[in-house]
């Protein structure tokens, strides 16, 4: 349980940074492209500043990612000892992309002053591509735990591995696009929300409008695609992991004409406080009210997921936020189509300002559903989580240390981004010196400013 808490906590923290690592480069590149294509100084300035933010976030993401690789062994020796030869394959493929990303992030950041426009832009492209392919690889490792494939066990040892089947396991085709789209939505809405706050405070200049529009559009386009992928994913889960689906939708016993519960908690064998829509769940699963859906009473209590209310509410919240963001995106699309402008309403801007946080919450909820919903299995129907966890005592100590450390890490990251903002407000000039991969700040900025 402590192993799960520690893994869950560090993963929940890392995943936000991972999203930004995956999708932020693309957002930066779009702004960079617009800037070069239209000779738009504002877009270039945004691209440049965003790339500095990206540098800090990628550095922190690399750290939290390393912690996770240690934890795979420290917390789950049972899993790694037996299945390392299979689950390690997607992880090692991710290594290629991580290395590429690290190298090109560095070159791209340094390139701002040293390379001309388009060649510099090209050094950023591998960052974005490697980000998505890296995400694919890591999510493939997770989806393998949901739908393990491509291996044979004999006497508890892995005897044969089919790397292709491991990597392209039956859960990848929906988990991977779901996560990559989520990364783009989280990043897009998060960045947009920063500028939405600026717009709300009356900074309605082109800089803030563009800073809002570019990431918001990217995230807005991803939203309907995400809802489609998510819908497909839910049906696939119903098929592949019926018990997880049963927990998501409060399906107690296997039957037809299953009702859909919106919200509500499951206490003493009953759903309370939910909006109940008859037949809808069956309809969503099989496009017919007559569809049979498997309930969790099909297995003994020990084989069921714990915390069903938590799983169900997380799922519902994720879907709710998804549709909320869809409405927000549609609103801006209609406004743009009609009068080539953002909606002027403050309500829209408030929505924009909250969209980033909402997207993060939705993404975290999604991970709760897939991870808690898989329990009690760590490798679905192959290995129990309890068999995989370390027997070491003293996990309370490491968990406490990690929570304290990450709290500092989180606060420091936010504080530094705020410092960036303060500095940018004071000076129009760009200063590439103060980021982890930027050339050294040899002298205080005010002196540099005077010279140039």
């Amino acid at each position, binding site marked *: 349980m402590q192993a799960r808490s520690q893994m869950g906590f560090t993963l929940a923290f890392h995943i936000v940074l991972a999203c930004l690592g995956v999708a932020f480069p693309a957002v930066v590149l779009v702004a960079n492209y617009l800037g070069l294509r239209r000779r738009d100084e504002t877009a270039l300035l945004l691209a440049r500043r965003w790339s500095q933010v990206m540098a800090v976030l990628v550095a922190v993401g690399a750290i939290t990612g390393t912690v996770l690789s240690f934890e795979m062994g420290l917390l789950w020796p049972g899993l790694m*000892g037996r299945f390392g030869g299979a689950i390690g394959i997607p992880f090692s493929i991710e290594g290629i992309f*991580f290395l*590429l990303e690290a190298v090109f992030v560095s070159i791209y950041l340094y390139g701002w002053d040293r390379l001309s426009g388009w060649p510099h832009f090209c050094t950023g492209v591998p960052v974005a591509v490697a980000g998505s392919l890296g995400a694919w690889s890591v999510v493939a490792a997770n989806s393998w735990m949901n739908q393990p494939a491509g291996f044979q066990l004999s006497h508890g040892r892995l005897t044969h591995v089919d790397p292709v089947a491991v990597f392209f396991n039956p859960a990848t085709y929906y988990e991977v696009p779901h996560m990559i789209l989520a990364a783009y939505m989280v990043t897009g809405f998060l960045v947009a929300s920063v500028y939405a706050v600026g717009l709300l405070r009356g900074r309605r200049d082109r800089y803030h409008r563009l800073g809002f529009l570019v990431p918001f559009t990217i995230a807005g386009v991803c939203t309907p695609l995400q809802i489609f992928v998510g819908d497909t994913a839910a049906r696939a889960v119903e098929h592949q992991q019926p018990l997880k689906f049963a927990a998501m939708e409060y399906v107690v016993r296997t039957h037809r004409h299953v009702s859909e519960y919106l919200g509500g908690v499951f206490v003493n064998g009953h759903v309370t406080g939910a909006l109940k829509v008859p037949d809808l769940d069956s309809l969503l699963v099989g496009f017919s009210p007559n569809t049979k859906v498997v309930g969790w009473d099909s297995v003994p209590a020990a084989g069921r997921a714990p915390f069903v209310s938590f799983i169900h509410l997380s799922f519902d919240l994720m879907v709710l936020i998804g549709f909320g963001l869809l409405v927000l995106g549609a609103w801006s699309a209609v406004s743009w189509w009609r009068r080539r402008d953002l909606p002027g309403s403050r309500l829209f801007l408030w929505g924009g300002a909250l969209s980033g946080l909402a997207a993060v919450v939705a993404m975290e909820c999604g991970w709760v559903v897939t991870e808690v919903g898989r329990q009690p299995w760590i490798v679905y129907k192959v290995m129990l989580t309890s068999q995989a966890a370390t027997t070491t005592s003293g996990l309370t100590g490491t968990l406490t240390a990690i929570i304290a450390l990450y709290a500092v890490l989180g606060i420091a990251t936010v504080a530094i981004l705020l410092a960036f903002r303060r500095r940018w407000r004071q000076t129009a000039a760009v200063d590439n010196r103060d980021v*982890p991969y930027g*050339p050294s700040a040899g002298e205080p900025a005010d002196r540099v400013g005077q010279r140039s």
Partner: protein
Amino acid sequence: MIAVDVAAALLWVTLTAYAITGGADFGGGVWDLLAGGAKRGEPVRRLIDESITPVWEANHVWLIITLVLFWTEFPPAFAAVTSTLFVPLSLVALGVVFRGAGFAYRKPLRRLFLQQLTGATFALSSLVTPFFMGAAAGAIVTGRVPADGQGNRVTSWTTPTCLLIGALSVVAFAFLAAVYLAADARRRGDGPLVRYFALRGLVTGALTGGLGAAALTELHAHASLTFHHFAGGGPLALLVVSGVLGLSALTLLAVRAGRGVRVIGAAAFATMLWAWAVAQYPRMLPGAFSLHAAAAPTASLVTEMVVFGAIVVLAGPSLILLYSLAQRGLLGESGEAQR
């Protein structure tokens, strides 16, 4: 099965890559720590910063690749190591967080106090992290990690040999960093800094040799089986080569002929690691697993070879580009110098 040997060699290649790149970054942190007060240490810290910054993350990725190769190629050995060595490895992980955070946050900060705080975090964790890495390695070398992972969580890595190897890693990384930094300072034509790091390279180089000899003596006294392995022809030859290379690097530093000193220093370190590898071959964890017994199915090993090939083909050229840009100072120097 040749696949197992190749897989083990690849694991060692990545570990070597991490040691001579990322390891040197630890050493840089140690020199940062010892650079003195804010004013006096400023040029030293600036050189360290400019040398490490562009390549820091790429160097760091080798650690992750090493971990991933370890668990994919030799899963049960990985599980045994992480179980028995839970404490030092957790401390390494925490050290990585502190170090990376200190490093990432120092640059954007402007207030001296905050810079000092993050800088101290970076520097202190650079000292502590390699110590635990070395101690953990010492536990593996001396066969204190049983197959079931139920070795003692504390005493298995706190033997005098392990502590000596921990200290050895700290000093050896510091030596490597001093060599690199002396070469960097020479490229910039910064005479005082060349002397500064050449002197420190000489001291840490001598210390590395001394600690290495002490570790071998300790092995002879308390772990004669392990000592016996190291005293075999191959490892002994490699240790001698390592010593000779180390001495040549020291000589070059002493006469301040910088050319090639970087490569020779790295090679001295690498041969030391490979002496360990050869001494241990064909054991994965002495007393617990042979390489064959711990190896994953052949298909997994072959996949890792393909992955490694992809790293060489895809990331290799870009890494060379990055390192050569950094070497030629195209990445490290401040904007003014370019204008």
